[in-house]
Protein backbone atom coordinates (compact mmCIF):
# COMPACT_ATOMS: atom_id res chain seq x y z
CA UNK A 1 0.00 0.00 0.00
CA UNK A 2 1.27 3.46 -0.88
CA UNK A 3 1.84 6.07 1.79
CA UNK A 4 -0.24 8.63 -0.06
CA UNK A 5 -3.14 7.78 -2.35
CA UNK A 6 -5.13 10.43 -4.12
CA UNK A 7 -8.15 9.47 -6.18
CA UNK A 8 -10.13 11.67 -8.48
CA UNK A 9 -9.37 14.89 -6.60
CA UNK A 10 -11.22 18.03 -7.63
CA UNK A 11 -10.60 21.55 -6.33
CA UNK A 12 -12.27 24.81 -7.30
CA UNK A 13 -11.59 28.50 -6.76
CA UNK A 14 -15.08 29.92 -6.71
CA UNK A 15 -16.61 28.98 -10.01
CA UNK A 16 -13.32 27.99 -11.62
CA UNK A 17 -12.30 24.38 -11.29
CA UNK A 18 -8.51 24.31 -11.03
CA UNK A 19 -8.07 20.58 -10.39
CA UNK A 20 -10.25 18.39 -12.50
CA UNK A 21 -9.93 14.91 -11.13
CA UNK A 22 -6.37 13.99 -10.31
CA UNK A 23 -5.23 10.58 -9.07
CA UNK A 24 -1.73 9.89 -7.85
CA UNK A 25 0.22 7.73 -5.44
CA UNK A 26 3.44 8.13 -3.54
CA UNK A 27 5.25 5.08 -2.20
CA UNK A 28 6.84 5.18 1.22
CA UNK A 29 10.49 6.21 1.08
CA UNK A 30 10.37 7.41 -2.51
CA UNK A 31 10.53 10.79 -4.21
CA UNK A 32 7.60 11.64 -6.45
CA UNK A 33 7.67 14.69 -8.64
CA UNK A 34 4.91 16.85 -10.09
CA UNK A 35 5.79 18.92 -13.12
CA UNK A 36 3.72 21.05 -15.40
CA UNK A 37 3.31 24.45 -16.99
CA UNK A 38 2.41 27.60 -15.09
CA UNK A 39 -1.09 27.37 -13.75
CA UNK A 40 -1.37 23.63 -14.28
CA UNK A 41 -2.52 23.18 -10.70
CA UNK A 42 0.55 21.83 -8.93
CA UNK A 43 0.40 24.28 -6.05
CA UNK A 44 -3.32 23.83 -5.79
CA UNK A 45 -2.84 20.08 -5.45
CA UNK A 46 -0.38 20.48 -2.60
CA UNK A 47 -2.59 22.99 -0.86
CA UNK A 48 -5.48 20.59 -1.05
CA UNK A 49 -3.34 17.76 0.34
CA UNK A 50 -2.25 19.79 3.33
CA UNK A 51 -5.80 20.89 4.08
CA UNK A 52 -5.45 24.55 3.12
CA UNK A 53 -8.02 24.11 0.39
CA UNK A 54 -11.12 22.00 0.62
CA UNK A 55 -11.55 19.57 -2.27
CA UNK A 56 -14.97 19.53 -3.87
CA UNK A 57 -14.68 15.83 -4.64
CA UNK A 58 -12.32 12.88 -4.45
CA UNK A 59 -10.49 11.14 -1.66
CA UNK A 60 -7.06 11.49 -0.11
CA UNK A 61 -5.62 8.63 1.93
CA UNK A 62 -2.51 8.91 3.98
CA UNK A 63 -1.16 5.76 5.49
CA UNK A 64 -4.51 4.15 4.86
CA UNK A 65 -6.54 6.85 6.61
CA UNK A 66 -8.83 9.40 5.02
CA UNK A 67 -7.20 12.83 4.93
CA UNK A 68 -9.71 14.86 2.96
CA UNK A 69 -11.72 17.16 5.17
CA UNK A 70 -9.10 17.02 7.92
CA UNK A 71 -8.19 20.60 8.87
CA UNK A 72 -4.72 21.82 8.04
CA UNK A 73 -3.45 21.91 11.59
CA UNK A 74 -4.41 18.24 12.00
CA UNK A 75 -2.70 17.19 8.79
CA UNK A 76 0.66 18.18 10.22
CA UNK A 77 0.06 16.04 13.26
CA UNK A 78 -0.65 13.08 10.99
CA UNK A 79 2.85 13.41 9.55
CA UNK A 80 2.75 15.65 6.49
CA UNK A 81 4.86 18.79 6.26
CA UNK A 82 4.44 21.36 3.51
CA UNK A 83 7.07 23.89 2.53
CA UNK A 84 4.86 26.27 0.59
CA UNK A 85 5.47 28.12 -2.65
CA UNK A 86 7.21 31.42 -2.04
CA UNK A 87 8.76 30.19 1.22
CA UNK A 88 6.33 31.99 3.51
CA UNK A 89 8.61 32.22 6.51
CA UNK A 90 7.41 34.36 9.44
CA UNK A 91 9.19 37.59 8.60
CA UNK A 92 9.13 39.29 11.98
CA UNK A 93 10.38 36.32 13.96
CA UNK A 94 13.91 35.17 14.37
CA UNK A 95 15.29 32.22 12.47
CA UNK A 96 15.24 30.22 15.67
CA UNK A 97 11.62 31.06 16.44
CA UNK A 98 10.65 30.03 12.95
CA UNK A 99 12.21 26.66 13.52
CA UNK A 100 10.53 26.31 16.89
CA UNK A 101 7.21 26.94 15.25
CA UNK A 102 7.96 24.10 12.87
CA UNK A 103 7.82 21.81 15.88
CA UNK A 104 4.56 23.27 17.15
CA UNK A 105 2.62 20.16 16.25
CA UNK A 106 4.82 18.04 18.47
CA UNK A 107 3.63 19.65 21.64
CA UNK A 108 5.56 18.79 24.73
CA UNK A 109 8.32 16.96 22.93
CA UNK A 110 11.87 18.05 23.04
CA UNK A 111 12.75 19.73 19.80
CA UNK A 112 16.07 21.30 20.62
CA UNK A 113 17.96 18.40 19.06
CA UNK A 114 16.03 18.96 15.85
CA UNK A 115 16.98 22.62 15.78
CA UNK A 116 20.57 21.50 16.09
CA UNK A 117 20.03 19.08 13.25
CA UNK A 118 18.75 21.80 10.96
CA UNK A 119 21.67 24.03 11.84
CA UNK A 120 24.02 21.21 11.07
CA UNK A 121 22.45 20.78 7.68
CA UNK A 122 22.38 24.52 6.94
CA UNK A 123 25.28 26.20 8.81
CA UNK A 124 24.28 29.51 7.18
CA UNK A 125 21.12 29.53 9.26
CA UNK A 126 23.02 29.02 12.47
CA UNK A 127 25.03 32.15 11.70
CA UNK A 128 21.76 34.07 11.46
CA UNK A 129 19.81 32.34 14.19
CA UNK A 130 18.74 35.56 15.92
CA UNK A 131 18.16 37.59 12.74
CA UNK A 132 14.60 38.48 11.70
CA UNK A 133 13.70 36.00 9.03
CA UNK A 134 12.18 38.69 6.82
CA UNK A 135 15.60 40.19 6.20
CA UNK A 136 17.17 36.97 4.96
CA UNK A 137 18.00 36.63 1.31
CA UNK A 138 15.87 34.45 -0.89
CA UNK A 139 18.13 31.45 -0.65
CA UNK A 140 18.47 31.70 3.08
CA UNK A 141 14.74 31.89 3.40
CA UNK A 142 14.38 28.77 1.31
CA UNK A 143 16.73 26.90 3.60
CA UNK A 144 14.73 28.11 6.55
CA UNK A 145 11.48 26.98 4.99
CA UNK A 146 12.82 23.48 4.39
CA UNK A 147 14.39 23.32 7.81
CA UNK A 148 11.17 24.43 9.39
CA UNK A 149 9.22 21.76 7.57
CA UNK A 150 11.67 19.13 8.85
CA UNK A 151 11.11 20.22 12.43
CA UNK A 152 7.80 18.36 12.56
CA UNK A 153 9.62 15.12 11.67
CA UNK A 154 7.28 14.45 8.79
CA UNK A 155 6.78 11.11 7.12
CA UNK A 156 5.84 12.93 3.94
CA UNK A 157 7.54 16.18 2.98
CA UNK A 158 5.93 18.30 0.29
CA UNK A 159 8.14 20.90 -1.34
CA UNK A 160 6.66 23.50 -3.68
CA UNK A 161 9.23 24.89 -6.09
CA UNK A 162 12.10 24.88 -3.61
CA UNK A 163 14.54 26.08 -6.23
CA UNK A 164 12.63 29.15 -7.36
CA UNK A 165 14.84 32.18 -7.30
CA UNK A 166 17.88 30.32 -6.09
CA UNK A 167 21.38 30.69 -7.41
CA UNK A 168 22.78 27.66 -9.24
CA UNK A 169 25.01 26.71 -6.34
CA UNK A 170 22.15 27.00 -3.92
CA UNK A 171 19.95 24.96 -6.19
CA UNK A 172 22.47 22.18 -6.15
CA UNK A 173 22.56 22.32 -2.38
CA UNK A 174 18.81 22.04 -2.15
CA UNK A 175 18.67 19.11 -4.54
CA UNK A 176 21.48 17.41 -2.67
CA UNK A 177 19.53 17.92 0.53
CA UNK A 178 16.46 16.33 -1.00
CA UNK A 179 18.56 13.36 -1.99
CA UNK A 180 19.90 13.02 1.54
CA UNK A 181 16.47 13.27 3.08
CA UNK A 182 15.31 10.52 0.80
CA UNK A 183 18.19 8.31 1.82
CA UNK A 184 17.31 8.98 5.44
CA UNK A 185 13.87 7.52 4.71
CA UNK A 186 11.68 10.59 4.28
CA UNK A 187 9.03 10.34 1.60
CA UNK A 188 8.98 13.41 -0.63
CA UNK A 189 6.47 14.97 -2.99
CA UNK A 190 8.31 17.54 -5.07
CA UNK A 191 6.86 20.24 -7.29
CA UNK A 192 9.41 21.82 -9.59
CA UNK A 193 9.82 23.97 -12.65
CA UNK A 194 13.33 22.76 -13.06
CA UNK A 195 11.99 19.56 -14.56
CA UNK A 196 15.24 17.94 -15.54
CA UNK A 197 16.69 18.13 -12.05
CA UNK A 198 13.44 17.05 -10.46
CA UNK A 199 12.91 14.08 -12.73
CA UNK A 200 16.50 12.99 -12.36
CA UNK A 201 15.90 12.72 -8.67
CA UNK A 202 12.40 11.29 -8.71
CA UNK A 203 11.40 7.67 -8.51
CA UNK A 204 8.12 8.51 -10.12
CA UNK A 205 6.78 11.56 -11.90
CA UNK A 206 3.45 13.06 -12.92
CA UNK A 207 2.92 15.64 -15.61
CA UNK A 208 0.01 18.05 -15.01
CA UNK A 209 -1.74 20.13 -17.59
CA UNK A 210 -4.72 22.38 -16.86
CA UNK A 211 -5.73 20.45 -13.80
CA UNK A 212 -5.32 16.94 -15.14
CA UNK A 213 -2.59 14.33 -15.08
CA UNK A 214 -1.62 13.88 -18.71
CA UNK A 215 1.37 11.63 -18.28
CA UNK A 216 3.01 9.62 -15.56
CA UNK A 217 5.85 7.21 -15.25
CA UNK A 218 9.18 6.66 -13.61
CA UNK A 219 11.49 9.66 -13.49
CA UNK A 220 13.81 8.16 -16.07
CA UNK A 221 11.03 7.33 -18.50
CA UNK A 222 9.65 10.82 -18.35
CA UNK A 223 13.08 12.34 -18.82
CA UNK A 224 13.39 10.56 -22.10
CA UNK A 225 9.83 11.08 -23.17
CA UNK A 226 9.62 13.02 -26.41
CA UNK A 227 6.76 15.27 -25.38
CA UNK A 228 8.24 16.05 -21.97
CA UNK A 229 11.56 16.95 -23.46
CA UNK A 230 9.89 19.30 -25.85
CA UNK A 231 7.42 20.99 -23.53
CA UNK A 232 9.29 21.08 -20.23
CA UNK A 233 12.97 20.75 -20.87
CA UNK A 234 13.02 23.35 -23.58
CA UNK A 235 14.58 21.09 -26.16
CA UNK A 236 13.44 20.90 -29.69
Amino acid at each position, binding site marked *: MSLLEVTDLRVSYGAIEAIKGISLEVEEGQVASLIGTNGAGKTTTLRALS*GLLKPTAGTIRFDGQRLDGVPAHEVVVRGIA*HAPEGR*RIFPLMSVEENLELGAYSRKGQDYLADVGGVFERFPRLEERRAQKAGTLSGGEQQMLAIGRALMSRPRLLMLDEPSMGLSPIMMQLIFDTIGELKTAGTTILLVEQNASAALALADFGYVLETGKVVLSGSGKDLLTDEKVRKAYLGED
Partner: protein
Amino acid sequence: MTQFFQQLSDGVVLGALYALIALGYTMVYGIVQLINFAHGEIFMVGAFGGYTIYHYLLPDNMPALVALPIVLVASMITSGVLAAIVERLAYRPLRNAPRLAPLITAIGVSIALQEMIRLFYPNADRGEPFPQLFPNGQVHFGGVSESYVNCFLVVLSVVLMLALRTFVLHSATGRAMRATAQDPDTARLMGINIDRIIVTTFVLGGLLAGAAGTLQGMVASPIDFQIGFIAGLKAFTAAVLGGIGNITGAVLGGFVLGIVEALATQYVPNGSALKDAFAFVVLILVLVFRPTGLLGESVRARA
Protein backbone atom coordinates in the same frame (compact mmCIF):
# COMPACT_ATOMS: atom_id res chain seq x y z
CA MET B 1 6.06 71.37 41.84
CA THR B 2 4.04 69.12 44.11
CA GLN B 3 1.06 69.85 41.96
CA PHE B 4 3.03 68.73 38.94
CA PHE B 5 3.73 65.38 40.55
CA GLN B 6 0.15 65.17 41.70
CA GLN B 7 -1.00 65.56 38.11
CA LEU B 8 1.63 63.13 36.92
CA SER B 9 0.30 60.59 39.33
CA ASP B 10 -3.30 61.27 38.30
CA GLY B 11 -2.19 60.81 34.71
CA VAL B 12 -0.67 57.45 35.55
CA VAL B 13 -3.95 56.29 37.07
CA LEU B 14 -5.89 57.33 34.01
CA GLY B 15 -3.19 55.91 31.75
CA ALA B 16 -3.29 52.53 33.45
CA LEU B 17 -6.96 52.29 32.64
CA TYR B 18 -6.39 53.29 29.02
CA ALA B 19 -3.51 50.84 28.75
CA LEU B 20 -5.55 47.89 29.97
CA ILE B 21 -8.17 48.53 27.34
CA ALA B 22 -5.62 49.41 24.68
CA LEU B 23 -4.06 45.97 25.00
CA GLY B 24 -7.21 44.38 23.64
CA TYR B 25 -7.19 46.69 20.64
CA THR B 26 -3.59 46.06 19.93
CA MET B 27 -3.70 42.30 20.24
CA VAL B 28 -6.75 41.96 18.04
CA TYR B 29 -5.26 44.35 15.55
CA GLY B 30 -2.01 42.48 15.58
CA ILE B 31 -3.59 39.18 14.79
CA VAL B 32 -6.40 40.00 12.37
CA GLN B 33 -5.60 43.58 11.36
CA LEU B 34 -9.00 44.68 12.56
CA ILE B 35 -9.77 47.86 14.47
CA ASN B 36 -12.19 46.25 16.85
CA PHE B 37 -14.43 49.21 17.49
CA ALA B 38 -16.59 47.00 19.67
CA HIS B 39 -13.82 46.57 22.20
CA GLY B 40 -14.92 49.62 24.18
CA GLU B 41 -18.36 48.03 24.49
CA ILE B 42 -16.85 44.76 25.60
CA PHE B 43 -15.27 46.73 28.40
CA MET B 44 -18.58 48.37 29.19
CA VAL B 45 -20.51 45.10 29.28
CA GLY B 46 -17.80 43.69 31.54
CA ALA B 47 -18.44 46.47 34.02
CA PHE B 48 -22.13 45.60 33.97
CA GLY B 49 -21.30 41.92 34.39
CA GLY B 50 -19.40 42.62 37.58
CA TYR B 51 -22.14 44.92 38.78
CA THR B 52 -24.82 42.32 38.11
CA ILE B 53 -23.05 39.62 40.07
CA TYR B 54 -22.58 41.95 42.98
CA HIS B 55 -26.06 43.30 42.95
CA TYR B 56 -28.10 40.21 42.26
CA LEU B 57 -26.04 37.22 43.38
CA LEU B 58 -23.81 38.14 46.27
CA PRO B 59 -25.32 38.37 49.75
CA ASP B 60 -25.73 41.95 50.93
CA ASN B 61 -23.56 41.58 53.95
CA MET B 62 -20.56 40.09 52.20
CA PRO B 63 -17.37 41.88 53.23
CA ALA B 64 -16.18 44.20 50.48
CA LEU B 65 -12.76 42.64 50.24
CA VAL B 66 -14.26 39.21 49.64
CA ALA B 67 -16.67 40.56 47.09
CA LEU B 68 -13.98 42.47 45.23
CA PRO B 69 -12.18 39.48 43.68
CA ILE B 70 -15.49 37.89 42.82
CA VAL B 71 -16.73 41.02 41.08
CA LEU B 72 -13.41 41.44 39.30
CA VAL B 73 -13.42 37.88 38.00
CA ALA B 74 -17.06 38.17 37.00
CA SER B 75 -16.29 41.26 34.95
CA MET B 76 -13.35 39.55 33.31
CA ILE B 77 -15.33 36.44 32.46
CA THR B 78 -18.23 38.47 31.09
CA SER B 79 -15.98 40.43 28.78
CA GLY B 80 -13.93 37.40 27.80
CA VAL B 81 -16.98 35.37 26.87
CA LEU B 82 -18.56 38.29 25.06
CA ALA B 83 -15.38 38.84 23.08
CA ALA B 84 -15.40 35.20 22.06
CA ILE B 85 -19.02 35.36 21.00
CA VAL B 86 -18.49 38.50 18.97
CA GLU B 87 -15.49 36.99 17.24
CA ARG B 88 -17.35 33.82 16.45
CA LEU B 89 -20.57 35.36 15.18
CA ALA B 90 -19.53 38.63 13.64
CA TYR B 91 -15.90 38.57 12.61
CA ARG B 92 -15.02 34.98 11.79
CA PRO B 93 -17.37 34.78 8.82
CA LEU B 94 -15.57 37.81 7.39
CA ARG B 95 -12.07 36.51 7.89
CA ASN B 96 -11.32 36.63 4.18
CA ALA B 97 -13.33 39.72 3.30
CA PRO B 98 -11.63 43.02 2.48
CA ARG B 99 -10.67 45.16 5.43
CA LEU B 100 -13.58 47.52 5.36
CA ALA B 101 -16.20 44.81 5.85
CA PRO B 102 -15.15 43.71 9.35
CA LEU B 103 -14.50 47.34 10.25
CA ILE B 104 -18.08 48.30 9.47
CA THR B 105 -19.24 45.15 11.22
CA ALA B 106 -17.26 46.20 14.27
CA ILE B 107 -19.04 49.52 14.28
CA GLY B 108 -22.34 47.69 13.96
CA VAL B 109 -21.48 45.40 16.86
CA SER B 110 -20.48 48.38 18.92
CA ILE B 111 -23.78 50.14 18.34
CA ALA B 112 -25.79 46.98 18.87
CA LEU B 113 -24.10 46.16 22.19
CA GLN B 114 -24.59 49.68 23.49
CA GLU B 115 -28.22 49.63 22.53
CA MET B 116 -28.87 46.21 23.98
CA ILE B 117 -27.52 47.29 27.32
CA ARG B 118 -29.41 50.55 27.18
CA LEU B 119 -32.71 48.92 26.26
CA PHE B 120 -32.64 45.77 28.29
CA TYR B 121 -30.59 46.60 31.35
CA PRO B 122 -32.59 48.50 33.91
CA ASN B 123 -31.19 51.97 34.54
CA ALA B 124 -28.24 51.52 32.22
CA ASP B 125 -29.16 54.76 30.50
CA ARG B 126 -29.01 56.97 33.54
CA GLY B 127 -26.17 55.19 35.25
CA GLU B 128 -25.90 52.50 37.91
CA PRO B 129 -23.81 53.36 40.93
CA PHE B 130 -21.03 50.79 41.02
CA PRO B 131 -20.33 49.10 44.35
CA GLN B 132 -17.48 50.71 46.24
CA LEU B 133 -15.47 47.72 47.33
CA PHE B 134 -12.37 49.46 48.44
CA PRO B 135 -11.84 51.24 51.74
CA ASN B 136 -11.84 54.99 51.54
CA GLY B 137 -8.65 56.81 52.20
CA GLN B 138 -5.55 58.24 50.72
CA VAL B 139 -1.98 57.21 50.30
CA HIS B 140 0.48 60.09 50.56
CA PHE B 141 3.86 60.22 48.86
CA GLY B 142 5.38 63.53 49.75
CA GLY B 143 2.72 66.04 48.89
CA VAL B 144 1.10 63.77 46.35
CA SER B 145 -1.95 61.84 47.40
CA GLU B 146 -3.90 59.13 45.68
CA SER B 147 -6.86 57.19 46.94
CA TYR B 148 -6.39 53.52 47.82
CA VAL B 149 -8.55 52.46 44.96
CA ASN B 150 -6.45 54.42 42.47
CA CYS B 151 -3.32 52.74 43.77
CA PHE B 152 -4.98 49.37 43.52
CA LEU B 153 -5.94 50.18 39.94
CA VAL B 154 -2.37 50.94 38.94
CA VAL B 155 -0.89 47.91 40.69
CA LEU B 156 -3.44 45.49 39.29
CA SER B 157 -3.05 46.87 35.78
CA VAL B 158 0.69 46.55 35.86
CA VAL B 159 0.50 42.98 37.14
CA LEU B 160 -1.98 42.02 34.43
CA MET B 161 0.07 43.68 31.73
CA LEU B 162 3.26 41.96 32.79
CA ALA B 163 1.47 38.63 32.88
CA LEU B 164 0.17 39.18 29.38
CA ARG B 165 3.55 40.17 28.06
CA THR B 166 5.19 37.09 29.47
CA PHE B 167 2.49 34.93 28.04
CA VAL B 168 2.75 36.35 24.53
CA LEU B 169 6.53 36.38 24.37
CA HIS B 170 7.42 33.18 26.07
CA SER B 171 4.68 30.62 25.77
CA ALA B 172 4.09 28.34 22.81
CA THR B 173 0.59 29.77 22.46
CA GLY B 174 2.04 33.25 22.41
CA ARG B 175 4.43 32.27 19.68
CA ALA B 176 1.53 30.76 17.77
CA MET B 177 -0.32 34.04 18.15
CA ARG B 178 2.53 35.94 16.60
CA ALA B 179 2.85 33.40 13.81
CA THR B 180 -0.86 33.66 13.06
CA ALA B 181 -0.54 37.41 13.00
CA GLN B 182 2.17 37.30 10.37
CA ASP B 183 0.87 34.61 8.06
CA PRO B 184 -2.26 32.70 9.02
CA ASP B 185 -2.11 30.18 6.21
CA THR B 186 1.43 29.17 6.93
CA ALA B 187 0.65 29.08 10.62
CA ARG B 188 -1.89 26.40 9.84
CA LEU B 189 0.81 24.44 8.07
CA MET B 190 2.75 24.47 11.33
CA GLY B 191 -0.13 22.71 13.04
CA ILE B 192 -1.58 25.84 14.60
CA ASN B 193 -5.35 25.89 14.90
CA ILE B 194 -5.73 29.50 13.96
CA ASP B 195 -9.40 29.70 14.82
CA ARG B 196 -8.57 28.75 18.34
CA ILE B 197 -5.61 31.11 18.49
CA ILE B 198 -7.65 34.04 17.22
CA VAL B 199 -10.45 33.42 19.65
CA THR B 200 -7.87 33.12 22.42
CA THR B 201 -6.54 36.52 21.46
CA PHE B 202 -9.99 38.06 21.61
CA VAL B 203 -10.63 36.41 24.96
CA LEU B 204 -7.35 37.65 26.41
CA GLY B 205 -8.17 41.18 25.29
CA GLY B 206 -11.64 40.74 26.74
CA LEU B 207 -10.32 39.58 30.10
CA LEU B 208 -8.21 42.69 30.44
CA ALA B 209 -11.06 44.90 29.32
CA GLY B 210 -13.31 43.25 31.90
CA ALA B 211 -10.80 43.96 34.62
CA ALA B 212 -10.71 47.55 33.42
CA GLY B 213 -14.50 47.55 33.65
CA THR B 214 -14.50 46.80 37.35
CA LEU B 215 -11.69 49.24 37.98
CA GLN B 216 -13.45 52.01 36.13
CA GLY B 217 -16.62 51.27 38.04
CA MET B 218 -14.82 51.67 41.30
CA VAL B 219 -12.96 54.88 40.49
CA ALA B 220 -15.63 56.52 38.36
CA SER B 221 -19.04 55.28 39.41
CA PRO B 222 -21.72 55.28 38.01
CA ILE B 223 -21.47 53.08 34.95
CA ASP B 224 -23.78 53.60 32.03
CA PHE B 225 -24.14 52.23 28.53
CA GLN B 226 -21.93 54.90 27.01
CA ILE B 227 -18.79 54.55 29.08
CA GLY B 228 -17.29 52.19 26.51
CA PHE B 229 -17.36 54.72 23.73
CA ILE B 230 -15.03 57.34 25.12
CA ALA B 231 -12.79 54.87 26.90
CA GLY B 232 -12.60 52.85 23.70
CA LEU B 233 -11.68 55.85 21.60
CA LYS B 234 -8.91 56.83 24.01
CA ALA B 235 -7.60 53.31 24.32
CA PHE B 236 -7.56 52.92 20.58
CA THR B 237 -5.62 56.14 20.32
CA ALA B 238 -3.21 54.84 22.94
CA ALA B 239 -2.71 51.63 21.01
CA VAL B 240 -1.87 53.52 17.83
CA LEU B 241 0.31 55.98 19.69
CA GLY B 242 2.41 53.13 21.01
CA GLY B 243 2.54 51.37 17.67
CA ILE B 244 -0.46 49.22 16.99
CA GLY B 245 0.18 45.52 17.23
CA ASN B 246 2.82 46.12 19.83
CA ILE B 247 2.03 45.10 23.38
CA THR B 248 4.59 47.20 25.20
CA GLY B 249 3.66 50.05 22.91
CA ALA B 250 0.01 49.93 23.92
CA VAL B 251 0.97 50.21 27.57
CA LEU B 252 3.35 53.05 26.89
CA GLY B 253 0.76 54.79 24.73
CA GLY B 254 -1.82 54.50 27.47
CA PHE B 255 0.43 56.11 30.04
CA VAL B 256 1.56 58.87 27.70
CA LEU B 257 -2.03 59.70 26.87
CA GLY B 258 -3.13 59.72 30.50
CA ILE B 259 -0.27 61.94 31.54
CA VAL B 260 -0.77 64.37 28.66
CA GLU B 261 -4.40 64.75 29.59
CA ALA B 262 -3.66 65.33 33.25
CA LEU B 263 -0.95 67.89 32.58
CA ALA B 264 -3.07 69.65 29.98
CA THR B 265 -5.93 69.95 32.44
CA GLN B 266 -3.66 71.67 34.90
CA TYR B 267 -1.35 73.78 32.81
CA VAL B 268 -3.02 74.68 29.53
CA PRO B 269 -5.48 77.55 29.42
CA ASN B 270 -8.91 76.04 28.91
CA GLY B 271 -7.14 72.73 29.46
CA SER B 272 -10.05 70.89 30.99
CA ALA B 273 -11.98 71.47 27.79
CA LEU B 274 -9.07 70.95 25.43
CA LYS B 275 -7.42 67.93 27.04
CA ASP B 276 -8.88 65.45 24.56
CA ALA B 277 -7.69 67.59 21.70
CA PHE B 278 -4.23 67.51 23.23
CA ALA B 279 -4.31 63.77 23.34
CA PHE B 280 -4.91 63.74 19.61
CA VAL B 281 -2.36 66.43 18.89
CA VAL B 282 0.28 64.33 20.62
CA LEU B 283 -0.84 61.33 18.62
CA ILE B 284 -0.57 63.21 15.35
CA LEU B 285 2.81 64.69 16.15
CA VAL B 286 4.17 61.30 17.08
CA LEU B 287 2.83 59.74 13.91
CA VAL B 288 4.18 62.46 11.69
CA PHE B 289 7.66 61.91 13.01
CA ARG B 290 7.39 58.19 13.71
CA PRO B 291 4.84 56.88 11.26
CA THR B 292 4.49 53.55 13.03
CA GLY B 293 3.99 54.86 16.53
CA LEU B 294 6.37 55.06 19.43
CA LEU B 295 7.47 51.45 19.44
CA GLY B 296 5.99 50.21 16.19
CA GLU B 297 8.37 48.34 14.02
CA SER B 298 8.37 48.84 10.32
CA VAL B 299 9.62 46.12 8.12
CA ARG B 300 8.92 47.73 4.82
CA ALA B 301 7.43 45.70 2.06
CA ARG B 302 10.48 44.80 0.00
CA ALA B 303 10.19 45.79 -3.57
